[in-house]
């Protein structure tokens, strides 16, 4: 069969399905399509399904498989997930949420705005304008609980990670790394270029659903003033 993905073991208790290695909505739609199919299938033995830009990692319980199936666990999981891989691509427009996330781009939060503006030869307002004018897709969460990797930002504001990561980036900081934009849900060291901060709690362990963003969500940033920021906290 002609397929545009590969399936390989990722260690002895997980496997990874990989599509062509690029950040694109076309590839990511395929990832999310298989991901959503797998969720509806409610398969046994599977502990975690981790969608990323162009891959899906499936973590499974070898012992449970082997207790119930007299077969190699990797082979068993591979055949269990097969129907999701051949399923037709369902258009997800209706199932993905559009989140409007308020961001304050005040220089006291946007630690790297001035540096970026100087380097790009544009005003800070232009950077903010470009950052808020697009709707982004949450390609994946990782690095920290609830950290959304979103893309792609306008090429004009794409900016490589800082060579020397900062030791402390406050929770809620919004940053750019390459063509990606993301939000630090917790205070952490990090190398992203920080352009603003959201008052929205991106991670709250007290909630049943502790992470604000989920894979596949669509996000639009809404600029707010410093006053509005403080009122929302």
């Amino acid at each position, binding site marked *: 069969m002609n397929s545009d993905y590969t399936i*390989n*073991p*990722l*260690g*002895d*208790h*997980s496997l*990874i399905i*990989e599509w062509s*290695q*690029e*950040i694109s909505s076309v590839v990511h739609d395929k990832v999310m399509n298989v*991901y959503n199919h797998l969720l509806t299938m409610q398969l046994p033995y599977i*502990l*975690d*399904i*981790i*969608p*990323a*830009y*162009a*891959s*899906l*990692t499936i*973590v499974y319980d*070898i*012992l449970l498989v*082997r207790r119930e199936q007299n077969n*190699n*666990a*990797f082979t068993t999981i591979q055949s269990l997930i097969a129907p999701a891989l051949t399923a037709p691509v369902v258009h997800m427009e209706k199932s993905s949420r559009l989140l409007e996330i308020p961001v304050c781009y005040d220089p006291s939060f946007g630690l790297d705005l001035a540096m970026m503006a100087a380097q790009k030869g544009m005003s800070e307002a232009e950077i903010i304008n470009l950052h808020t004018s697009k709707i982004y897709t949450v390609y*994946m*969460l*990782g*690095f*920290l*609980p*609830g*950290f959304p*990797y979103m893309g792609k930002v306008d090429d004009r504001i794409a900016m490589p990670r800082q060579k020397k990561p900062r030791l402390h980036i406050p929770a809620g900081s919004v940053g750019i790394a390459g063509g990606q934009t993301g939000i630090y849900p*917790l205070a*952490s060291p990090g190398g992203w270029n920080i352009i603003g901060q959201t008052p929205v709690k991106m*991670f709250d*362990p007290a909630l049943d659903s*502790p*992470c604000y963003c*989920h*894979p596949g969500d669509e996000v639009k940033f809404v600029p707010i003033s410093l006053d509005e920021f403080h009122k929302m906290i």
Partner: protein
Amino acid sequence: MIQVIQQGLLDTIQDGGRYGYQHLGINPGGAMDRAAMYVANILVGNNPEAAVIELHFPAAVLLFEEDTLIALSGGDFGAMVNEQPLDINQPIWISQLSILRFTKPVAGARCYIAVRGGLNNTPWLGSHSTHLKAGAGGFEGRKLEKNDRIPVNPVDEDIDKALRQKYLHVTQLGTPLPWRADVRDLYSDGSMIRVVTSLEYPELTPASQSLFTSHYFTLSEQCDRMGYRLKGPALHMVKEEERLSAGITRGTIQLLPDGHLIILMADHQTTGGYPRIAHVVSADLPTLAQLLPHSRISFQIIPHDEAEELLIAAEQHLHFLQNACNLRWQEWLQTNHK
């Protein structure tokens, strides 16, 4: 209740881990040495994945407010109850107001305490494991500190009644019961860690591929619950190219940009983009979890299906131990329960 009367280096409550949330960036965590967690729990008749205390040396000093049955497994930290030495891998009756301390790092990197009935903290997302970054799970989402009081689930079955009756007049003592778990088959010789190769292994230069299995690597000082950084010969890819971040798992061995290796452990990030060279087989993770910085290891590549078989063998051994423990308790009850 178990009271912390002196704080240790890093003592946390852990269980079998928190699965089902990695798509949100929440890693499973859990006991670094699952075999030790399992053994300690079955020795006291708990569910094998019940919450345990994972200790690093120097470990906390603990006061047991009530009579309790406990077991220690994994690392041997020279446990003493009121100056009386205790062995690991045995059920131990701890009479109320006894103080358990750990005097010297005899062997291993992590010691586990299981308490009969299990620890009674509020689970977070279905697990008792402490998630330090999230500040949730375990004991208030953090490592144990002085004056913490850890609640224990009360159990009042025949075993508990008989134990209380038998040791009614024993105070401030730890009394081992006369059997122990043989855990030798659960650990391999720590100097040889078995791995399966990963996706970017073929992209290592032939010289690096050969070094990976022929040379030894040393655990650096940067070894913790998140990962073990190794020191050894620098390895190189045929061509350095950036990879998109993707899901990674416990045991994944990544090649860092400086040419050195890191093995991801229990608190690893859920995604990563460094080249994946190999994965430590699940059956050897307990062995790895008990290695200290400066330990020297070599990697041996084995076929994928053999890795599964090794884990099945370990599971069968644990199952055998569990049955043997149940049998011992039955025999013990017959002679001690009136």
